[in-house]
């Protein structure tokens, strides 16, 4: 353990660097708290930095999330502080519509993060937007995702939001054992002889009756060792299919009973 001491305040004893560092590691999911800590003392700012950038959002416009960046802003920021690329573990790329120019801009950013553990594109389903087809997104963006992000040895978690995505793309990446899906996967020819990597944790949100056949075809080969399921507002047929395939392995279940999908739509209607 390092013997370097960090002054917490003028009235409290100094604490070893490693202890302070360990405490801050628990705040990775609370970027606003970390940001406040970083302002308290220059030394704390230095320690906090690698946790502050743990989870960042790339968005086409400004948002209220502290670590949300437009592409040009992030490129400028990284050129000033290139070490930050090593601290980013969760990259959340947000887009609701086909925004080719924006996604092509992102292409240059994606290979910069060598320590990604989780990739979200986008993070969730948008009930007021139609699904985007993966094959309709710019080729450069798709290539960057497949060859850089998913290919990283550190990558283990993928969240597919408003995109109809070919899940066979994940077959070459055995490290990925957590999948969050908010749209039906893309229909693909299934090779019965291929050994498929098994998803250990699955999150499903908003899958509908018409998605069930495609989903089941995929699930029969990929969730044979499923241990954890998070199930939000999707059709019963799909849930029963998951239960049927994973009944002997499923240990953790999170079941959401809400009106989320249509609730969002109805709020949208009321707003307009």
């Amino acid at each position, binding site marked *: 353990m390092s013997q370097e001491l960090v002054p917490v305040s003028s009235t409290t004893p100094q604490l070893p660097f490693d202890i302070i560092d360990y405490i801050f590691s628990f705040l990775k*999911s609370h970027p606003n708290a970390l940001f406040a800590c970083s302002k308290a003392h220059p030394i704390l700012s230095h320690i906090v930095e690698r946790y502050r950038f743990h*989870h960042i*959002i790339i*968005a086409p*416009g*400004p*948002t*209220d*999330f502290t670590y*949300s960046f437009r592409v040009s802003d992030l490129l400028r920021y990284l050129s000033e502080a290139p070490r930050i690329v090593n601290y980013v573990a*969760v990259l*959340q790329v*947000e*887009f*609701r519509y086909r925004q080719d120019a924006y996604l092509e801009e992102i292409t240059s950013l994606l290979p910069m993060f060598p320590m990604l*553990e*989780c990739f*979200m594109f986008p*993070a*969730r389903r948008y*009930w*007021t937007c*139609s699904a985007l087809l993966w094959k309709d997104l710019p080729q450069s963006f798709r290539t960057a995702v497949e060859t850089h992000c998913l290919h990283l040895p550190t990558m283990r*978690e993928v*969240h597919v939001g408003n995109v109809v995505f070919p899940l066979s793309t994940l077959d070459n990446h055995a490290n990925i054992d*957590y999948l*969050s899906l908010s749209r039906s996967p893309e229909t693909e020819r299934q090779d019965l002889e291929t050994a498929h990597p098994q998803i250990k*944790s699955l*999150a499903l949100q908003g899958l*509908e009756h018409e998605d069930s056949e495609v989903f089941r075809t995929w699930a029969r080969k990929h969730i044979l060792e499923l241990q*954890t*399921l*998070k199930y939000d507002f999707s059709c*019963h047929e799909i*849930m029963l299919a998951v*239960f*049927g395939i994973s*009944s*002997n*392995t*499923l*240990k*953790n*279940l*999170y*079941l*959401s*009973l*809400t*009106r*989320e*999908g*249509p*609730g969002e*739509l*109805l*709020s*949208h*209607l009321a707003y*307009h």
Partner: protein
Amino acid sequence: MSCYLIWRIIKESAEFLETEAADTVDLSSLPHLQHLTVHAEVYFKIQISGETWCTSFLPTAVETIKTAPSVQELTIEIYVDPTDASWPDIDGIDFSTLTALTESPSCYPHIDLYIYTGSPRFPFTRAKIGSLLAKHEDIVRSIEQGVFIIHPEEAAPPPSPRSYVAKEYENKCTIM
């Protein structure tokens, strides 16, 4: 408003009404379940008459839990959404269905109960939850015995400790 959006609203609303009227989920086919978390939403709507109408998925949640084989850890997360009513009748929320979980044969050794609104206007403090549950003797006794563990104004942890949760955000401009 696009045709797509209108179509979605009609379709989803119809499906929603069907869903709302249903549906206990049968978990009896999962013999190896160790940790069950059920998230139940409670929300309010203002009727044309001006009265506030409360809908709760809590009874469905409890019925669902009762179908599960014995689990080692049970977590109930109650999200009370106050946003659609200017003055939601939080005191009127019916928690009586939770008493079913204190009775034999359910009798869970440990139940984590998370209740939150996420709204600073209507926070579920420990005192608030205590006053709402005070009329249910079985639940109060279970809290005293440490069976029910109350987590005021807090969301349950994700089911997979390793998994990441997407950050929610608001756009600062209309078009993104």
